[in-house]
């Protein structure tokens, strides 16, 4: 079941094709919305690789993303480093930074692990304002970061290719024996140990993979928006958006977080004309809460069930 079949590749191909053709169908404004949806999808996949699979719930994911964002922003803006170097370095630094939340995971889990990661995010928020504000830009953040693209179409193609590459690679990895082992880690850590597997090694793999994706997404994000501020980066609202995207779409899958990210971003944009202010988040949050309470397995699962019922009805 976890193996790669032709129909999967056909589905991925169709997905890629639709995305590639998207600029022909929709306005530039919609493309801009897609760009943010793509980045959110990357962050959601990163969260899911760690928390959705292994069960180590991270409440501090913006901490990881923030490392990538700040690393590339500081290196390219303050030290004039070319983007070709600053982005890979930022990804590396994010992976190193993830060790900080990996070490606690060796001792604690569940609510306690979630709280530690939350504390790390808050700590990062405060430190970034105090330590070397000449580099981090303090409370105001960093402006005028070199942007990689100009125009909605280019931004769309860049974010879409990145999202697709991340999603497809993550999907491939999850189809390997490593993916099976990571899922097993989330289900029964003790049994996994009892089967002779080093859970430490597997956890490290999950953290590194998640940090890799977070750092990559964060670094490209920084070079897309061109401006970052700690208040909106190390923020509970941002964390909320990532987690909700995964849970709504369906955790433990790759397509789920993508569906969730697209659904949420477009919902927010759809509401903009009716509720221009922060009131949008009320409807957004209420929908998220209801879906989470009554459809905890997410939209993907719901679609799957509908599809099966439809097939059952047709047959």
């Amino acid at each position, binding site marked *: 079941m976890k193996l790669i079949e032709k129909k999967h590749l056909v589905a991925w191909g169709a997905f890629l094709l639709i995305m590639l053709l998207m600029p*022909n169908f929709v306005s530039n*404004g919609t493309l801009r919305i897609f760009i943010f949806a793509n980045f959110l999808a990357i962050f959601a996949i990163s969260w899911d690789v760690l928390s959705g699979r292994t069960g180590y719930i991270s409440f501090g994911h913006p901490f990881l993303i923030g490392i990538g964002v700040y690393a590339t922003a500081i290196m390219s803006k303050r030290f004039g480093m070319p983007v070709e170097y600053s982005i890979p370095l930022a990804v590396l630094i994010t992976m190193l930074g993830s060790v900080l939340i990996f070490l606690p995971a060796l001792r604690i889990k569940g609510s306690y692990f979630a709280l530690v990661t939350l504390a790390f995010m808050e700590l990062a928020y405060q430190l970034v304002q105090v330590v070397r504000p000449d580099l981090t830009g303090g409370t105001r953040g960093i*402006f005028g970061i070199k942007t990689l693209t100009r125009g909605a179409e280019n931004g769309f193609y860049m974010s879409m290719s990145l999202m697709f590459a991340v999603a497809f690679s993550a999907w491939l990895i999850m189809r390997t024996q490593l993916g099976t082992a990571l899922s097993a880690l989330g289900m029964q850590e003790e049994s996994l140990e009892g089967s002779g597997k080093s859970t430490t090694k597997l956890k490290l793999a999950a953290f590194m993979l998640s940090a890799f994706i977070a750092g990559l997404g964060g670094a490209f994000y920084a070079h897309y*928006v061109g401006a970052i501020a700690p208040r*909106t980066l190390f923020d509970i609202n941002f964390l909320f958006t990532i987690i909700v995207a995964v849970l709504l779409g369906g955790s433990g899958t790759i397509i789920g977080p993508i569906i969730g990210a697209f659904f949420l971003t477009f919902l927010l944009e759809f509401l903009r004309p009716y509720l221009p202010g922060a009131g949008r988040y009320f409807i957004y949050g209420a929908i998220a809460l209801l879906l989470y309470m009554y459809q905890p397995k997410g939209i993907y699962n719901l679609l799957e069930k509908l599809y099966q019922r439809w097939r059952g009805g047709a047959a």
Partner: protein
Amino acid sequence: MTIKSWLKPVVSGVAISAISMASLAAEPIKVGFIGSMSSDSGLSGLRAAEIAIDEINNTGGVNGQQVELVTADTREDPTEGIKAYEFLAESAEVDFIVSSSIDDVSLAWMPRFLEYQIPTLDTWASYVGIIDMVKDDPEGMKNYFMNVASDEALATLYINFGADVLKAKMGFESVVILAEDTAFGEAITGLVTEALAPVAGIEVKEVIKYDITTNDFAPLFSKAEQSGADFIYQISTVNAAGLSAQYVKLQVPLAMTGVNVAALGHEYWTDTGGAGAGISTLSPIPAVGLDLDPVSAEFVATYQSRYTSRPVMPHFNGFNVYHGLKQALAAAGEVGGFGDGWSAAMEKQDLKLMKDGELWLRYGWWQHDEIEPVTGRTYPHNIRFDLSEPFDDGAPSMVVVQWHEDGKPYVVYPEKYANGEFVLPSWVPAK
């Protein structure tokens, strides 16, 4: 056939029938408003834009074209600001953008401005770095204008206030700076320590920086008291109401002045529950407590008859939006739209608002090679200001406003605009 090409005939069909129904030709001019819809300053700007556009449409529009307003919320968040700017540029395809964005948000969407080149007027952000961009890249920034005096001009006039009032009148010799730990706080701290001391002869005893999430200022006020300074200079944009409320609740026995963004609004008194007395703040003009010229007074009358919810009076940026938007549309009317000639036509706009036969407010621009005499540098596309009495070349860049214990704001500096005295709160002993 793409959806776009399929939609086109439908859309143009609708458009044609609309044209045949209305005798007026062409599509409307679209004006985008970008700002924080839930903040008082954002709302001031938005309402001012609505009033200005209605007035223009009622008098026949711009060259027969009606003007339509599209809004985008920034939530005072840089990322939301970028999304909002993109929405205006790409989804709404506006012709012109008027912005009530704070500094951070304007800086965030600035790369998008450079990309789209949609004529844009800033009415809140005052960061002098943006004006420097106009100086360095006149071609790329040609469609950008800022009709609030840049922060360097604000600070310069404030130093004079220190010399003329704080030192000469109150006898204050030393200051303790209580500044939020932000880039803005750092910049103003730098200006004050470098200029207030030598120019006004006031010694800086200590600089206390605090985190913007601070809830409890009591230990900070104790520290300020212990420094032995004569007064507190506060620099507070984010947490300003909380800081001043606690100042009053704790009855800190030192005068406090400086930058307090919360006190720039007319709702300050009710928001702080009366706990805002004695606080003075610099304010870009038109400020709270400032008398108005007849044209602006009429705008306020319209505003107050139309909107009953807060803010009951537009903030300074509301006036800037009202007058600035009208100027931008007038420039577009002269050259037939927001195309190539617009920037040059906008540069020539010069609105002189008189009160009692004197120049009261001026909405004109510094030209590219024009040197401001006091600072000795240029401010292209920044609103024209005057830094020394009698302010006959432009309005002053700012006034100092103080909330007295009767619950009213008074302008206390400069002399020409003052309608009240700078006083100490009742619990503060005189020097």
